[in-house]
Protein backbone atom coordinates (compact mmCIF):
# COMPACT_ATOMS: atom_id res chain seq x y z
CA UNK A 1 0.00 0.00 0.00
CA UNK A 2 1.36 3.43 -0.92
CA UNK A 3 2.19 5.94 1.86
CA UNK A 4 -0.64 8.18 0.64
CA UNK A 5 -3.20 5.38 0.94
CA UNK A 6 -1.84 4.40 4.35
CA UNK A 7 -2.17 8.00 5.54
CA UNK A 8 -5.78 8.14 4.28
CA UNK A 9 -6.56 4.90 6.11
CA UNK A 10 -5.03 6.23 9.34
CA UNK A 11 -7.08 9.43 9.06
CA UNK A 12 -10.27 7.39 8.49
CA UNK A 13 -9.54 5.29 11.59
CA UNK A 14 -8.84 8.47 13.56
CA UNK A 15 -12.20 9.94 12.52
CA UNK A 16 -13.96 6.72 13.55
CA UNK A 17 -12.26 6.70 16.96
CA UNK A 18 -13.04 10.41 17.41
CA UNK A 19 -16.76 9.97 16.79
CA UNK A 20 -16.85 7.06 19.26
CA UNK A 21 -15.04 9.09 21.93
CA UNK A 22 -17.31 12.05 21.28
CA UNK A 23 -20.50 10.00 21.60
CA UNK A 24 -19.20 8.28 24.75
CA UNK A 25 -17.68 11.25 26.56
CA UNK A 26 -19.19 14.34 24.92
CA UNK A 27 -22.17 14.60 27.26
CA UNK A 28 -19.91 14.22 30.33
CA UNK A 29 -17.73 17.12 29.17
CA UNK A 30 -20.47 19.74 29.00
CA UNK A 31 -19.54 23.14 30.39
CA UNK A 32 -22.56 25.40 30.71
CA UNK A 33 -24.48 22.76 28.76
CA UNK A 34 -22.06 22.89 25.81
CA UNK A 35 -20.01 19.89 24.71
CA UNK A 36 -16.78 19.93 22.66
CA UNK A 37 -16.82 18.94 18.98
CA UNK A 38 -13.88 16.71 18.08
CA UNK A 39 -14.94 16.39 14.44
CA UNK A 40 -14.64 20.11 13.67
CA UNK A 41 -11.34 20.18 15.54
CA UNK A 42 -9.96 17.38 13.36
CA UNK A 43 -11.22 19.24 10.30
CA UNK A 44 -9.32 22.37 11.32
CA UNK A 45 -6.20 20.30 12.01
CA UNK A 46 -6.55 18.77 8.53
CA UNK A 47 -6.74 22.24 6.97
CA UNK A 48 -3.70 23.40 8.94
CA UNK A 49 -1.54 20.39 8.17
CA UNK A 50 -2.76 19.46 4.70
CA UNK A 51 -4.12 22.61 3.07
CA UNK A 52 -7.50 23.43 1.51
CA UNK A 53 -8.06 20.14 -0.31
CA UNK A 54 -7.26 17.95 2.70
CA UNK A 55 -9.38 20.24 4.89
CA UNK A 56 -12.33 19.91 2.51
CA UNK A 57 -12.09 16.11 2.27
CA UNK A 58 -11.65 15.52 6.01
CA UNK A 59 -14.34 18.11 6.78
CA UNK A 60 -16.82 16.42 4.46
CA UNK A 61 -16.33 12.95 5.97
CA UNK A 62 -16.09 14.21 9.55
CA UNK A 63 -19.31 16.18 9.07
CA UNK A 64 -21.07 13.25 7.44
CA UNK A 65 -20.14 11.01 10.38
CA UNK A 66 -21.45 13.64 12.79
CA UNK A 67 -24.66 13.94 10.73
CA UNK A 68 -25.31 10.21 11.08
CA UNK A 69 -25.64 10.69 14.86
CA UNK A 70 -28.07 13.62 14.58
CA UNK A 71 -31.80 13.38 13.93
CA UNK A 72 -33.37 16.83 13.70
CA UNK A 73 -31.04 18.36 11.09
CA UNK A 74 -30.79 16.99 7.54
CA UNK A 75 -28.03 14.58 6.59
CA UNK A 76 -25.28 16.59 4.88
CA UNK A 77 -25.65 19.87 6.77
CA UNK A 78 -22.63 19.26 9.02
CA UNK A 79 -20.75 17.80 6.04
CA UNK A 80 -21.36 21.00 4.08
CA UNK A 81 -20.36 23.22 7.01
CA UNK A 82 -17.20 21.32 7.98
CA UNK A 83 -16.13 20.95 4.36
CA UNK A 84 -16.27 24.73 3.88
CA UNK A 85 -14.50 25.41 7.18
CA UNK A 86 -11.77 22.85 6.42
CA UNK A 87 -11.20 24.33 2.97
CA UNK A 88 -11.23 27.86 4.39
CA UNK A 89 -8.71 27.08 7.15
CA UNK A 90 -6.53 25.24 4.62
CA UNK A 91 -6.63 28.11 2.13
CA UNK A 92 -5.74 30.62 4.84
CA UNK A 93 -2.95 28.38 6.09
CA UNK A 94 -1.30 28.19 2.69
CA UNK A 95 -1.86 31.87 1.92
CA UNK A 96 -1.56 33.98 5.03
CA UNK A 97 -1.22 32.07 8.29
CA UNK A 98 2.40 32.12 9.46
CA UNK A 99 4.21 29.23 11.11
CA UNK A 100 3.76 29.63 14.85
CA UNK A 101 2.87 27.09 17.51
CA UNK A 102 0.22 29.47 18.86
CA UNK A 103 -1.49 29.35 15.46
CA UNK A 104 -3.03 25.94 16.18
CA UNK A 105 -5.13 26.94 19.25
CA UNK A 106 -5.96 30.29 17.69
CA UNK A 107 -7.12 28.70 14.43
CA UNK A 108 -9.05 26.08 16.42
CA UNK A 109 -10.82 28.82 18.39
CA UNK A 110 -11.73 30.98 15.38
CA UNK A 111 -12.50 28.01 13.10
CA UNK A 112 -14.82 26.36 15.63
CA UNK A 113 -16.73 29.58 16.38
CA UNK A 114 -17.09 30.16 12.63
CA UNK A 115 -18.29 26.57 12.16
CA UNK A 116 -21.02 26.93 14.80
CA UNK A 117 -22.29 30.17 13.25
CA UNK A 118 -22.06 28.79 9.70
CA UNK A 119 -23.91 25.61 10.72
CA UNK A 120 -26.80 27.62 12.16
CA UNK A 121 -26.82 30.12 9.27
CA UNK A 122 -26.85 27.38 6.59
CA UNK A 123 -29.43 25.42 8.59
CA UNK A 124 -31.66 28.47 8.85
CA UNK A 125 -31.35 29.06 5.09
CA UNK A 126 -32.29 25.42 4.49
CA UNK A 127 -35.40 25.67 6.66
CA UNK A 128 -33.99 24.41 9.98
CA UNK A 129 -35.39 27.34 11.94
CA UNK A 130 -35.42 25.35 15.19
CA UNK A 131 -31.66 25.93 15.41
CA UNK A 132 -32.40 29.52 16.37
CA UNK A 133 -35.32 28.74 18.69
CA UNK A 134 -33.09 28.53 21.75
CA UNK A 135 -32.18 32.19 21.20
CA UNK A 136 -29.13 34.20 20.23
CA UNK A 137 -27.62 34.05 23.70
CA UNK A 138 -27.54 30.25 23.49
CA UNK A 139 -25.95 30.43 20.04
CA UNK A 140 -23.25 32.79 21.28
CA UNK A 141 -22.68 30.64 24.35
CA UNK A 142 -22.29 27.51 22.18
CA UNK A 143 -19.91 29.30 19.78
CA UNK A 144 -17.70 30.68 22.57
CA UNK A 145 -17.58 27.60 24.83
CA UNK A 146 -17.14 25.17 21.93
CA UNK A 147 -14.36 27.39 20.55
CA UNK A 148 -12.66 27.42 23.96
CA UNK A 149 -12.90 23.64 24.12
CA UNK A 150 -11.30 23.39 20.67
CA UNK A 151 -8.47 25.76 21.66
CA UNK A 152 -7.79 23.71 24.81
CA UNK A 153 -7.82 20.37 23.00
CA UNK A 154 -6.11 21.61 19.83
CA UNK A 155 -2.46 20.87 20.58
CA UNK A 156 -2.87 17.19 21.55
CA UNK A 157 -5.43 16.60 18.78
CA UNK A 158 -3.20 18.34 16.20
CA UNK A 159 -0.28 16.19 17.34
CA UNK A 160 -2.34 13.00 16.92
CA UNK A 161 -3.67 14.18 13.54
CA UNK A 162 -0.15 15.09 12.44
CA UNK A 163 1.03 11.54 13.22
CA UNK A 164 -1.91 10.05 11.34
CA UNK A 165 -1.48 12.32 8.30
CA UNK A 166 2.23 11.61 7.83
CA UNK A 167 2.85 10.79 4.20
CA UNK A 168 -0.39 12.29 2.89
CA UNK A 169 -0.30 14.50 -0.22
CA UNK A 170 -1.29 17.72 1.54
CA UNK A 171 1.09 17.17 4.44
CA UNK A 172 4.00 16.59 2.09
CA UNK A 173 3.14 19.69 0.12
CA UNK A 174 3.10 21.85 3.23
CA UNK A 175 6.21 20.22 4.70
CA UNK A 176 4.47 18.89 7.78
CA UNK A 177 6.79 17.32 10.32
CA UNK A 178 4.32 15.11 12.14
CA UNK A 179 3.94 17.17 15.28
CA UNK A 180 0.74 18.71 14.06
CA UNK A 181 2.51 22.02 13.57
CA UNK A 182 3.53 22.72 10.05
CA UNK A 183 6.99 23.79 8.96
CA UNK A 184 6.55 25.15 5.49
CA UNK A 185 7.06 28.37 3.68
CA UNK A 186 4.02 30.47 2.91
CA UNK A 187 2.66 29.48 -0.44
CA UNK A 188 1.65 32.06 -3.05
CA UNK A 189 -1.90 33.33 -2.68
CA UNK A 190 -4.26 31.13 -4.69
Amino acid at each position, binding site marked *: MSPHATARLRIAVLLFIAILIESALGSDMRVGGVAPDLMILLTICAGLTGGAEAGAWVGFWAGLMADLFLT*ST*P*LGLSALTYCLIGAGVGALRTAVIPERRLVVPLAAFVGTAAAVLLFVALGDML*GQTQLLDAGRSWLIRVAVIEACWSAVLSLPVAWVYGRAARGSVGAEQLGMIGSGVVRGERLPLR
Partner: protein
Amino acid sequence: MAVYRRSTRTRYVLAVLVLAALTLVTIDARSNGSGVTSEIRGKVHDVFSPVQRATHSALQPVGNFLTGALDYGSLRQENQRLRDQVIALQNQSAQSTAEQAAADQVLRQQGLPWVGAIPTRTVQIIDNGSSNFENTVTINKGTTSGLAKGQPVVAAGGLVGTVASAGSRTAVVTLITDPTFSVGVRLDAKNIGYAQGFGRNDPLRVSVITTNAAVPTLKKGQVLLTSGLDSELYPPNIPVGKVVDASRAPGSVEPDITLQPLVDLNELTYLQVLLWAPQ
Protein backbone atom coordinates in the same frame (compact mmCIF):
# COMPACT_ATOMS: atom_id res chain seq x y z
CA MET B 1 2.09 26.51 -13.14
CA ALA B 2 1.98 23.62 -10.68
CA VAL B 3 0.40 25.86 -8.08
CA TYR B 4 -2.21 26.97 -10.62
CA ARG B 5 -3.07 23.33 -11.50
CA ARG B 6 -3.26 22.42 -7.82
CA SER B 7 -5.48 25.42 -7.11
CA THR B 8 -7.86 24.47 -9.94
CA ARG B 9 -8.04 20.92 -8.62
CA THR B 10 -8.77 22.18 -5.08
CA ARG B 11 -11.63 24.33 -6.36
CA TYR B 12 -12.97 21.37 -8.35
CA VAL B 13 -12.81 19.06 -5.31
CA LEU B 14 -14.49 21.68 -3.10
CA ALA B 15 -17.26 22.21 -5.66
CA VAL B 16 -17.91 18.46 -5.92
CA LEU B 17 -18.01 18.02 -2.13
CA VAL B 18 -20.33 21.01 -1.65
CA LEU B 19 -22.65 19.67 -4.35
CA ALA B 20 -22.60 16.20 -2.77
CA ALA B 21 -23.48 17.67 0.63
CA LEU B 22 -26.26 19.81 -0.83
CA THR B 23 -27.66 16.78 -2.66
CA LEU B 24 -27.77 14.83 0.61
CA VAL B 25 -29.44 17.75 2.39
CA THR B 26 -32.06 18.02 -0.37
CA ILE B 27 -32.81 14.29 -0.42
CA ASP B 28 -33.10 14.18 3.37
CA ALA B 29 -35.24 17.32 3.59
CA ARG B 30 -37.61 16.03 0.90
CA SER B 31 -37.97 12.59 2.50
CA ASN B 32 -39.15 14.37 5.69
CA GLY B 33 -37.54 11.91 8.08
CA SER B 34 -38.93 8.73 6.56
CA GLY B 35 -36.85 8.09 3.46
CA VAL B 36 -33.64 6.32 2.59
CA THR B 37 -31.46 8.73 4.58
CA SER B 38 -33.28 8.08 7.85
CA GLU B 39 -33.03 4.37 7.11
CA ILE B 40 -29.27 4.79 6.71
CA ARG B 41 -29.11 6.68 10.00
CA GLY B 42 -31.08 3.91 11.74
CA LYS B 43 -28.81 1.20 10.28
CA VAL B 44 -25.70 3.12 11.33
CA HIS B 45 -27.07 3.43 14.89
CA ASP B 46 -27.77 -0.32 14.91
CA VAL B 47 -24.29 -1.20 13.67
CA PHE B 48 -22.59 1.27 15.99
CA SER B 49 -24.62 0.46 19.10
CA PRO B 50 -22.51 -2.51 20.36
CA VAL B 51 -19.28 -0.53 19.79
CA GLN B 52 -20.89 2.54 21.35
CA ARG B 53 -22.01 0.56 24.40
CA ALA B 54 -18.54 -0.95 24.81
CA THR B 55 -16.85 2.46 24.41
CA HIS B 56 -19.32 4.04 26.82
CA SER B 57 -18.68 1.35 29.45
CA ALA B 58 -14.91 1.52 28.98
CA LEU B 59 -14.78 5.32 29.16
CA GLN B 60 -17.42 5.73 31.90
CA PRO B 61 -14.82 6.24 34.68
CA VAL B 62 -13.18 8.96 32.57
CA GLY B 63 -16.58 10.54 31.96
CA ASN B 64 -17.42 10.46 35.67
CA PHE B 65 -14.07 12.06 36.46
CA LEU B 66 -14.62 14.78 33.86
CA THR B 67 -18.14 15.48 35.11
CA GLY B 68 -16.78 15.80 38.63
CA ALA B 69 -13.87 18.01 37.56
CA LEU B 70 -16.04 20.33 35.48
CA ASP B 71 -18.71 20.69 38.20
CA TYR B 72 -16.23 21.22 41.06
CA GLY B 73 -17.86 24.44 42.35
CA SER B 74 -21.34 23.01 42.71
CA LEU B 75 -19.92 19.73 43.97
CA ARG B 76 -18.46 21.41 47.06
CA GLN B 77 -21.87 22.67 48.11
CA GLU B 78 -23.47 19.37 47.32
CA ASN B 79 -20.74 17.59 49.24
CA GLN B 80 -21.81 19.20 52.53
CA ARG B 81 -25.44 18.33 51.90
CA LEU B 82 -24.50 14.76 51.07
CA ARG B 83 -22.39 14.41 54.23
CA ASP B 84 -25.49 15.18 56.28
CA GLN B 85 -27.45 12.66 54.29
CA VAL B 86 -24.80 9.99 54.73
CA ILE B 87 -25.02 10.28 58.54
CA ALA B 88 -28.77 9.76 58.35
CA LEU B 89 -28.45 6.92 55.89
CA GLN B 90 -25.85 5.09 57.97
CA ASN B 91 -28.62 4.35 60.45
CA GLN B 92 -30.58 2.53 57.83
CA SER B 93 -29.75 -0.78 56.29
CA ALA B 94 -28.68 0.28 52.83
CA GLN B 95 -27.78 -2.19 50.14
CA SER B 96 -26.87 0.45 47.63
CA THR B 97 -25.17 -1.47 44.88
CA ALA B 98 -25.41 -0.16 41.32
CA GLU B 99 -27.57 -3.12 40.31
CA GLN B 100 -29.97 -2.44 43.17
CA ALA B 101 -30.27 1.21 42.15
CA ALA B 102 -30.91 0.28 38.55
CA ALA B 103 -33.51 -2.29 39.57
CA ASP B 104 -35.18 0.29 41.80
CA GLN B 105 -35.31 2.75 38.95
CA VAL B 106 -36.96 0.19 36.70
CA LEU B 107 -39.36 -0.88 39.44
CA ARG B 108 -40.39 2.72 40.10
CA GLN B 109 -41.38 2.92 36.48
CA GLN B 110 -43.62 -0.15 36.65
CA GLY B 111 -47.31 0.45 37.13
CA LEU B 112 -47.18 4.21 36.61
CA PRO B 113 -50.76 5.31 37.36
CA TRP B 114 -51.13 7.56 34.33
CA VAL B 115 -49.92 4.89 31.87
CA GLY B 116 -53.12 2.88 32.43
CA ALA B 117 -53.55 -0.07 30.10
CA ILE B 118 -51.07 1.14 27.48
CA PRO B 119 -48.39 -1.52 26.90
CA THR B 120 -44.83 -0.35 27.62
CA ARG B 121 -41.24 -1.36 26.91
CA THR B 122 -38.45 -0.74 29.41
CA VAL B 123 -35.39 0.62 27.61
CA GLN B 124 -31.90 1.69 28.63
CA ILE B 125 -30.04 4.78 27.44
CA ILE B 126 -26.81 3.89 25.62
CA ASP B 127 -25.78 7.36 24.42
CA ASN B 128 -26.63 10.69 26.01
CA GLY B 129 -26.00 12.68 22.82
CA SER B 130 -23.19 15.20 22.41
CA SER B 131 -24.80 17.67 19.99
CA ASN B 132 -25.19 21.26 21.16
CA PHE B 133 -28.22 21.87 18.95
CA GLU B 134 -30.46 18.91 19.68
CA ASN B 135 -31.39 17.19 22.93
CA THR B 136 -31.61 13.50 22.18
CA VAL B 137 -30.64 10.18 23.73
CA THR B 138 -30.13 6.81 22.06
CA ILE B 139 -31.87 3.79 23.61
CA ASN B 140 -31.10 0.09 23.33
CA LYS B 141 -34.32 -1.14 21.67
CA GLY B 142 -35.80 -0.59 18.23
CA THR B 143 -38.43 -1.79 15.81
CA THR B 144 -37.82 -5.47 16.67
CA SER B 145 -39.11 -4.67 20.18
CA GLY B 146 -42.19 -2.91 18.82
CA LEU B 147 -40.85 0.64 18.94
CA ALA B 148 -41.88 3.10 16.24
CA LYS B 149 -41.42 6.75 15.43
CA GLY B 150 -43.72 9.04 17.40
CA GLN B 151 -44.27 6.83 20.47
CA PRO B 152 -44.24 8.71 23.80
CA VAL B 153 -41.37 8.07 26.23
CA VAL B 154 -41.86 8.46 29.99
CA ALA B 155 -40.01 7.93 33.27
CA ALA B 156 -41.15 7.82 36.88
CA GLY B 157 -41.81 11.58 37.03
CA GLY B 158 -43.66 12.03 33.76
CA LEU B 159 -43.10 12.72 30.08
CA VAL B 160 -39.50 12.50 28.83
CA GLY B 161 -39.88 12.83 25.07
CA THR B 162 -40.82 10.99 21.93
CA VAL B 163 -39.21 8.40 19.65
CA ALA B 164 -37.69 10.46 16.83
CA SER B 165 -36.39 7.54 14.75
CA ALA B 166 -36.19 3.80 15.22
CA GLY B 167 -33.68 1.34 13.79
CA SER B 168 -34.09 -2.39 14.25
CA ARG B 169 -32.12 -2.57 17.52
CA THR B 170 -31.80 1.06 18.64
CA ALA B 171 -33.89 4.22 18.61
CA VAL B 172 -33.32 7.93 19.13
CA VAL B 173 -35.52 9.79 21.61
CA THR B 174 -36.05 13.54 21.32
CA LEU B 175 -36.25 15.00 24.83
CA ILE B 176 -38.95 17.48 25.83
CA THR B 177 -36.42 20.31 26.09
CA ASP B 178 -35.48 20.02 22.40
CA PRO B 179 -36.64 23.03 20.34
CA THR B 180 -38.42 20.70 17.88
CA PHE B 181 -40.56 19.21 20.66
CA SER B 182 -44.07 20.39 21.48
CA VAL B 183 -46.96 18.77 23.35
CA GLY B 184 -50.55 19.78 24.03
CA VAL B 185 -51.25 20.50 27.73
CA ARG B 186 -54.46 21.13 29.68
CA LEU B 187 -54.31 24.43 31.56
CA ASP B 188 -57.70 24.23 33.28
CA ALA B 189 -61.16 22.83 32.57
CA LYS B 190 -61.70 25.15 29.61
CA ASN B 191 -58.25 26.09 28.35
CA ILE B 192 -55.57 24.17 26.57
CA GLY B 193 -52.17 25.16 25.25
CA TYR B 194 -48.99 23.64 23.96
CA ALA B 195 -45.65 23.40 25.69
CA GLN B 196 -42.51 23.78 23.60
CA GLY B 197 -38.86 22.99 24.39
CA PHE B 198 -36.32 25.79 24.25
CA GLY B 199 -33.05 24.01 24.73
CA ARG B 200 -31.08 22.09 27.31
CA ASN B 201 -31.43 23.38 30.90
CA ASP B 202 -34.10 25.90 29.86
CA PRO B 203 -37.74 25.55 30.97
CA LEU B 204 -40.52 24.78 28.48
CA ARG B 205 -42.72 27.67 27.38
CA VAL B 206 -46.47 27.29 27.11
CA SER B 207 -48.56 29.06 24.50
CA VAL B 208 -52.25 29.36 25.30
CA ILE B 209 -54.57 28.37 22.47
CA THR B 210 -56.92 31.32 22.36
CA THR B 211 -60.61 30.60 22.84
CA ASN B 212 -63.61 32.53 24.15
CA ALA B 213 -63.06 31.00 27.60
CA ALA B 214 -61.72 33.10 30.46
CA VAL B 215 -57.93 33.42 30.55
CA PRO B 216 -56.42 30.60 32.66
CA THR B 217 -55.00 31.41 36.08
CA LEU B 218 -52.22 29.07 37.05
CA LYS B 219 -50.37 28.75 40.33
CA LYS B 220 -46.66 28.35 40.71
CA GLY B 221 -45.87 24.67 41.27
CA GLN B 222 -49.05 23.45 39.56
CA VAL B 223 -48.44 20.33 37.45
CA LEU B 224 -49.67 20.42 33.86
CA LEU B 225 -50.78 17.21 32.12
CA THR B 226 -51.00 16.24 28.48
CA SER B 227 -54.32 17.27 26.95
CA GLY B 228 -54.91 14.08 24.96
CA LEU B 229 -57.26 15.71 22.49
CA ASP B 230 -58.35 13.91 19.32
CA SER B 231 -55.38 13.24 17.01
CA GLU B 232 -53.04 14.45 19.76
CA LEU B 233 -49.60 12.80 19.62
CA TYR B 234 -49.66 11.84 23.33
CA PRO B 235 -52.20 10.03 25.51
CA PRO B 236 -54.03 12.18 28.08
CA ASN B 237 -52.99 12.92 31.68
CA ILE B 238 -49.24 12.31 31.49
CA PRO B 239 -47.48 14.84 33.77
CA VAL B 240 -45.35 17.20 31.65
CA GLY B 241 -43.96 19.80 34.04
CA LYS B 242 -44.39 22.06 37.01
CA VAL B 243 -45.35 25.73 36.51
CA VAL B 244 -42.34 27.91 37.30
CA ASP B 245 -43.85 31.20 36.27
CA ALA B 246 -47.27 32.27 35.01
CA SER B 247 -47.05 36.03 35.27
CA ARG B 248 -48.77 38.36 32.85
CA ALA B 249 -46.69 41.03 31.15
CA PRO B 250 -48.16 44.58 31.28
CA GLY B 251 -50.58 45.01 28.40
CA SER B 252 -50.65 41.30 27.61
CA VAL B 253 -53.88 39.32 27.67
CA GLU B 254 -52.34 35.89 28.12
CA PRO B 255 -49.87 34.83 30.79
CA ASP B 256 -46.24 33.91 30.03
CA ILE B 257 -46.15 30.35 31.32
CA THR B 258 -42.90 28.44 31.81
CA LEU B 259 -42.69 24.81 32.88
CA GLN B 260 -39.91 22.88 34.57
CA PRO B 261 -39.88 19.21 33.44
CA LEU B 262 -40.77 16.87 36.29
CA VAL B 263 -38.10 14.39 35.24
CA ASP B 264 -34.41 15.24 35.74
CA LEU B 265 -33.27 14.80 32.15
CA ASN B 266 -29.59 14.76 33.13
CA GLU B 267 -30.01 11.71 35.38
CA LEU B 268 -31.80 9.27 33.10
CA THR B 269 -30.76 5.63 32.73
CA TYR B 270 -33.95 3.63 32.19
CA LEU B 271 -37.08 4.81 30.39
CA GLN B 272 -40.49 3.44 29.44
CA VAL B 273 -41.66 3.67 25.83
CA LEU B 274 -45.44 3.64 25.51
CA LEU B 275 -46.45 1.43 22.58
CA TRP B 276 -49.17 3.87 21.68
CA ALA B 277 -50.20 5.51 18.43
CA PRO B 278 -52.40 8.60 18.02
CA GLN B 279 -56.07 7.57 17.93
